[in-house]
């Protein structure tokens, strides 16, 4: 079963925005949608490494700020004509706190 750890409160992330979680293997972008759902994706666009956390969030999608690839945050897959995928991580929101898949820490420790 997935273990979860607390990374902060929902209010820390602007609506339709993102914040980062730093791990030893790179940053994870944690997004909050207009309807308060939370997604966690690797903060590296498969195209040329753009920071997805800085993209415009629309619906459950985010547009990479560097060259406008659009990703479905549920699956991490690029939509439209572009092909590519970023890693996604399980998240939960409980009592206004954001919890994320704890294996991220393990991943850091292993490094």
């Amino acid at each position, binding site marked *: 079963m997935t273990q979860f750890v607390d990374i902060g409160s929902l209010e820390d992330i602007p609506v339709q925005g993102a914040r980062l979680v730093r791990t030893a293997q790179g*940053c994870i972008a944690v997004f909050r949608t207009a309807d308060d759902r939370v997604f966690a994706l690797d903060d590296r666009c498969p195209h040329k490494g753009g920071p997805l956390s800085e993209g415009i969030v629309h619906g*459950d999608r985010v547009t990479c700020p560097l060259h406008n690839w659009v990703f479905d945050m549920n699956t991490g897959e690029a939509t439209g004509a572009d092909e590519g995928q970023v890693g996604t991580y399980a998240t939960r929101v409980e009592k206004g706190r954001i919890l994320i898949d704890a294996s991220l820490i393990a991943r850091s420790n292993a490094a």
Partner: protein
Amino acid sequence: MKKKLVIIGAGMASGRMLEHLFDAAPDLYDVTLFNEEPRGNYNRLMLSPVLSGEKTYEEIVTHDADWYEAHGVTCRFGEPVVRIDREAKLVHTNQGSAEYDALVIATGSAPFIIPVVGKELPGVVTYRDLEDTHAMIDAGVAGKDAVVIGGGLLGLEAAAGMAARGASVTVIHLMGHLMERQLDPAAGYLLKKDLESRGIKVHCEGATKAILGHERAEAVLLEDGTVYPADLVCMAVGIRPETRIAVDAKLEVERGITVDDSMRTTDPSIFALGECVEHRQQLFGLVAPLYDQAKVLAKTLQGEAAEFRPVQTATKLKVTGCDLFSAGDFADGEGREDIVFRDPGRGIYKRLVLEYNRIIGIVMYGDTADGNWFYGLLKDGTDVSEMRDTLIFGPAFQGGGAPDPMAAVAALPPEAEICGCNGICKGQIVQAVQGGAVTLDAVRAQTKASSSCGTCTGLVEQVMQFTLGDDFAASAPSGMCGCTDHSHEDVRRLIKSMGLKSIPAVMQELGWKTPGGCHSCRPALNFYLLAEWPTEYQDDRQSRFVNERNHANIQKDGTYSVVPRMWGGVTTPAELRAIADAADKYDVPMVKVTGGQRIDLLGVRKEDLPHMWADLNEAGLVSGHAYSKGLRTVKTCVGKDFCRFGTQDSTGLGIRLEKLLWGSWTPHKVKLGVSGCPRNCAEATCKDVGVVCVDSGYNISVAGAAGMEVKETEHLASTPSEDEAVQIITAFIQLYREHAKYLDRPYKWVAKVGLDWVIERVVDDLAGRQALVERFELSQSVYRKDPWAEHSTDRERAKWAPMADFTLEAAE
């Protein structure tokens, strides 16, 4: 002997439970019922009609004294239980006690009070019971001011009730739109509009700072400094389960009193139900699930097996005229699809969220007739693939047919301006058409509408089509993006003529096809709105491209570049030192002189930005907006103070222009150049606006380009006066801000409208020029400020760093 059943709380849940219990087993228990309120059970939901005057208290009583007597209930009303003694199986009040064999806690919930200064003042109430309702009725008389804090279900019912009694009511809501838990932004916008149309003021994104007043509440102060007068303040920001006696009795309590499926707490003789409980991590705030709990508990108390299984509940708002319906999960999600229907003309919005061909979420506003039908499909998990295409039109396909693309134009008043170039209103076009001008050319010839830049052709055609009906076929519109069929120009004009002041307003009224737009339309809408309503529109940071959101240019590796302003390219040793210090302190990999006569610090980490800005600010440096669709640089040459050929103070004029124009947002970036003589060392003749000084004054030319295209500027005006030159340039920039399509540089825009049209407005028409300058200044009163300073305050700084850092934990 009968067993003793003690109930704490005579509310809606315990009332319903007793009905079931007495129906099935009238003689099983001796019941003692405690209530803090000095009365028995009444229909709490109906307090809102009591508040608004549609009902009286007597009409909403559900169990009267006769009922309690007939069922042998010992009523101890107005006597709150203060302690439970689990060892002795006793409950205590301040007057006495009672023994129990079985105990039911049904204490409901308590309103949440936000901890602000002044919250204890008389005149501050919550909305929970009859006493609160009476306080508001007393305040709700004509001429008094009421403020409701909280724009959820309860707050809005309170607001509508007091407004119905004549009070002038303001609702302050923390979030971006009303009832955000039940509604999406589109429906929230329609609700706000309806409330406003009945005189209720709505202030979203308002954080309450304090309640002001001496003897009693007099006003509410918000974080942003706004003050609303208030004879009465109603706090309706949420509820929390009333669990105090359960906590004291050491029962397991999370957010609510934990119960199992049979409604039993961790003590086998103690049960709980209603809003005070937590069942499988879920809390309850609506009556439907509480009634199910009541059924289950009645069985449990008879020793029968029963399990509580919560089902989805739908929400409606009991405010006459505000028809909304919401149920299920309407968030975007994996494999989820939206069906959106908007009828701007009738103020209708419907959205169904589907997953695996089943409805999982419903949001409706304006026409909720089909709500229960959809809700049935949702609860039953019906596969809707067969009826998908017509699903949104409801069981009878009633209303049939797609939303009317003409609706927005049809709804415009006759005096709404359609052609901005020639100032032609809808009414004039309708008249021309009715007078026989049935082709676009005829309309153009008669009214001049769309005869200049032509960008309003789509709108003119729509007006013709709506006047002529099917006799006229408009050419297919090309929308600004996949979210809408309206062109950029149409959207701009409709924002103005329909008075649309927020992104959700635009999307609803113009029938956007997506729930929330995309990365292409959102930045454009944000600009159009702030340009049209500088003092009213709230800039939406999340609708901006990364560079403008972070006030720095993003680099290929995700770092940023920082370019401070150097007014007119002039700097000082102190500024240079501050830049050098910052470059050292933050390990800047590259320091480069730009093509815009200033210095670029490239490769700065995001979390360092606010710190570096604070340092630069201290030396008097502000953002150079090297990232903005706004004023970039004003390049100058040394001019007459030093150069042997200089005719005027080109450096001084450049600085003056930059200080005037900086901070303004424009459709695309804007660059100026001012040269001191026709040798043109500042390359002014390939800029968006160029000034070449000559002995007799100033030659102003515009619409140059030296990027992807190269083009010489065209002559706009010559004037002997520096002041007039500044005025003409300001008017030109404002005209560009008001008319150009997002992402058209001035040279592209001027090519569309024609230079003559521009000259007429900013050179020949003196009053018009003056008005343009005034509108520019009004906008600058909001936007001429340093964004770096705003973001480098202590409070803002933390937001630039990661929210969590697991590399640190790894190191520990």
